[in-house]
């Protein structure tokens, strides 16, 4: 099978899976088998693509040409490869987790859940392999829309309201700002293809480049740069597997992935630094890092705290893109994978706590760690990786991000980075600490509470082990990330 076929197959498999899921709605066991099967298939296909991947020969597939000169095109390059690897691996793990979670939690509309989940992953792969900006935009919108039912899953007023915020901001920014930015780009450059070195250099007046770049950064609402971050906390009404995969990995990473793509292949790093397009935008990212961390501190709801933590972490990646040096881009790309593994672990744990102990507030979790040691152990590992301590994968990305700041002499930003790491410690570590060593607030014990369902535990264990593994063996991601910076 040729690479082209594999590529298309990787995107189509989740959609085929969605159809199978809908068809088998009367047979839950078979339906879940289809989910697992397609997740496994996608994982195998993407890994196969990765094994064969050789950055030297970019390979592209054109599907159609809806507008003259604008094709629907897929191609594989290292950044997309990295993103696809992360997404497909984590989909498999999340599927295992979701089955246990959804059954234990007795959620309704499970068919819709699994089907939309599969479509969302298909869209994510579409984003990862998009060969030009218009194709990327297509999948970007499809991802927003396909995740909407997942956010509105519960169907009650709170869920509808949260979903409305979610959709309003994501669609609003993408139509109002991103589309405008794409159109201006097309108008100026005459093409939307991703090219090494960018397509805007020499065509766009540098004075305007800052404005256009801002349209992109804020238009990509999924990157959750303040003030367009509100959708992420709002989306926490969704079932936990959704929060885990989509709002720690697929959706948000699609956002920062797009930022990176635009930075590298539309503007080009040289053009950004020479035109000063990034001058003032870095402060938005810097402010987001700090503010979101501070807000996370005061959240008592665990998922909300994690959501603000995500906002903060996303801006690391945006910042890495904005600095536009090889090292910072390397850090940014690495952080896509490192943060994904760590944050998904945290969300898995949060979901496990909800399912097993029916608790959502951190203040209620005192002493819970003794009843659920595996869950909180995984949580601890995830936290440490997020903070960026060795021996966990999160250290690498933070290291390169920091190096990027040093290279560019952005000492103030470096201090932001360090301060935020301290804040990470302050808002993440007390949770496992309280769970292991604290007491329940009303003095009751948790002897009735048992560990989460086995499939949840398995998933958590895998991801937390991956956090450790990535410290010692980050090579696959590292090499891919190296390619995009051009340091190879």
């Amino acid at each position: 099978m040729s690479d082209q076929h594999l590529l298309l197959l990787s995107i189509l498999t989740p959609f085929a899976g969605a159809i199978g899921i809908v068809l088998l709605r009367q047979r839950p066991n078979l339906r879940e088998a289809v989910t697992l099967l397609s997740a496994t298939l996608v994982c195998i296909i993407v890994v196969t693509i990765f094994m064969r991947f050789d950055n030297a020969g970019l390979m592209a597939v054109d599907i159609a040409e809806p507008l003259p000169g604008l094709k629907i095109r897929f191609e594989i390059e290292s950044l997309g490869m990295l993103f696809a690897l992360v997404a497909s691996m984590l989909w498999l793990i999340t599927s295992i987790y979701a089955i246990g979670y959804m059954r234990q939690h007795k959620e309704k509309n499970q068919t819709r859940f699994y089907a939309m989940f599969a479509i969302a992953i298909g869209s994510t792969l579409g984003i990862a392999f998009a060969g030009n900006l218009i194709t990327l935009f297509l999948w970007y919108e499809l991802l927003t829309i396909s995740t909407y039912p997942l956010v509105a899953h519960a169907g009650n007023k709170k869920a509808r309201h949260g979903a409305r915020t979610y959709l309003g901001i994501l669609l609003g920014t993408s139509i109002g700002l991103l589309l405008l930015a794409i159109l201006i780009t097309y108008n100026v450059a005459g093409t939307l293809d991703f090219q090494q070195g960018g397509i805007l250099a020499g065509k766009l007046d540098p004075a305007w480049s800052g404005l256009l770049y801002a349209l992109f950064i804020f238009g990509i609402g999924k990157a959750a740069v303040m003030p367009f971050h509100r959708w992420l906390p709002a989306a926490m009404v969704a079932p936990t597997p959704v929060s885990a995969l989509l709002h720690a990995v697929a959706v948000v990473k699609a956002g920062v992935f797009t930022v990176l793509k635009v930075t590298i292949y539309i503007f080009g790093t040289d053009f950004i630094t020479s035109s000063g397009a990034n001058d003032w935008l870095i402060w938005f990212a810097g402010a987001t890092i700090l503010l979101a961390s501070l807000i996370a501190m005061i959240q008592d709801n665990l998922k909300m705290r994690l959501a603000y933590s995500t906002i903060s972490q996303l801006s690391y990646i945006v910042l890495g893109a904005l600095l536009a040096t090889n090292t910072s881009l390397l850090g940014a790309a690495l952080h896509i994978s490192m943060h994904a593994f760590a944050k998904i672990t945290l969300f898995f744990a949060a979901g496990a706590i909800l399912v097993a102990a029916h608790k959502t507030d951190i203040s209620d979790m005192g002493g819970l760690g003794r009843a659920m040691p595996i869950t909180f152990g995984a949580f601890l590992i995830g936290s440490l990786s997020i903070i960026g301590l060795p021996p966990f994968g999160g250290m690498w990305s933070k290291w390169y991000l920091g190096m990027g700041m040093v290279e560019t002499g952005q000492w103030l930003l470096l201090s932001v980075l360090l301060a935020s790491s301290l804040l990470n410690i302050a808002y993440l570590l007390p949770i496992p600490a309280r769970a292991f060593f604290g007491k329940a607030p009303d003095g009751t014990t948790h002897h009735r509470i048992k560990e989460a369902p086995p499939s949840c535990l398995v998933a958590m264990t895998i991801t937390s082990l991956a956090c450790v593994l990535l410290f010692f063996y980050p090579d696959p991601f590292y090499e891919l990330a190296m390619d995009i910076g051009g340091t190879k």
Partner: protein
Amino acid sequence: MIEQNLCLLLVVIPLIAAPVTAMLPAGRTPWFFTLTITWLCFVLSIWQLTIVLDGSTISYELGGWAPPWGIEYHIDALNAFVTLIVSGIAAITLPYALRTVENEIQRRDTSLFYAVFLLCFVGLLGIAQTGDVFNLFVFLEISSLSSYVLIGMGQRRRALTAAYQYLIMGSIGATFLLIGIGLIYAETGTLNMQDLHQRLQPILDHRTVHTGFIFLVVGIALKLALFPLHLWLPNAYKYAPSAISVFLSATATKVAVYVMLRIVFTVFSIDFLKITSTEFIFLMLGAFGVLVASTGAIFHYDIKRILAYSSIAQVSYMVLGMGFASTLGVTATVVHMFNHALMKGALFMAAGAIVLRIGSSKFENIYGIGRQMPWTFAAIFIAGLSLIGIPGTAGFISKWYFMLAALEQQAWLIALVILFGSLLSVVYMWKIFEALFFHRPTNTSPPVSEAPLSLLLPMWTLVLANIYFGINTDLTVSVAETAVRLLGITAYHE
């Protein structure tokens, strides 16, 4: 034999079929007969389009009298395209009509009903095909009178007042058109469009010509429900029988836009627009129309009414495109004529399916109904995304061209209006999605079944067309570009 009379047969076949239908016995026979005729016309219209696709024109002298003494059919890519839209939508509406008409119209009235439907069809085709301004008026009246009747056939009593209001507004519009035709006739002595174009060029600064232009444009604006002359439309589309809402919303306003294009660019000229700065007025009217109608749609809690307001907004986009007076802008208008017919047709079909099952299109009666009618809901969803302009759907293509046209002229304010209009459409479409699917059902009445297949098939044909023409635009864009070139429109220059 057939090919040389093709453009005429397209109009005359349904014209002959209408009185025949009126004489048929009530029941399904008239339906089947009408179905056959519309499909025949659809095939002929495709044939016609293939002939003129290369930019050539067909001239047909009615009665064998050469223009300007006789009436001429002058077919170019634009005529053929509009004819294709009208006959295509009619052909797809007819299978849909069977069940809804049986539900909404008394059996004894069916033969007359379908006869009037055919007359409306004839009128629209006649408008699209003719090259003579007075002949256009006559066929406009055929389509108008028949649509008053069709709307008045709605079940609610407000259908009557809606039809009456439409009749008054439509007649005022037609009379304005008549005044306009009279004034330019007084200045030129001819009624043939090509001839008018020739004779108007030297006298474009005459005040009588200006006044004639104003009256023509206002008359057409009434017909296409351009803001601020749009007030008749929401009730008319809301209370009309379902099949008629589908047909009229997808064709009538599009044909009116076509007439506007014809009058403005063929009879007058793009130079006239530039001399009189009229393009600016079109831009303003379009922009206000988009904003007012989209905002209006947000404050309603009834699917059909929201869709009707959205139609006004979409027509305003088309006028906006004309206002750019550039290749890109008018291309956007022509492409959107087609795409809007696809999306609005599908949406009104789905709304009609809900009315068939529930008997109402108001939110309070249909909360959560999408779960019981998943296919209908999915159709609304996809067609709605197309309306919003999500990439991968036909609506995105139009929106793309509108935006390009705005950016090309650095009309930033207009570009923002277009984007803001899209955002408003997100709001009102999402209100519908939410009400239909994510809202808990309020009543505990027994669950309803999915719409019958005879409704779903045409609906999904249009839905899939929305996706197909969002990915493959060879047809729409090439036709639009040919048509725009023949209208004498050039690319924008600083």
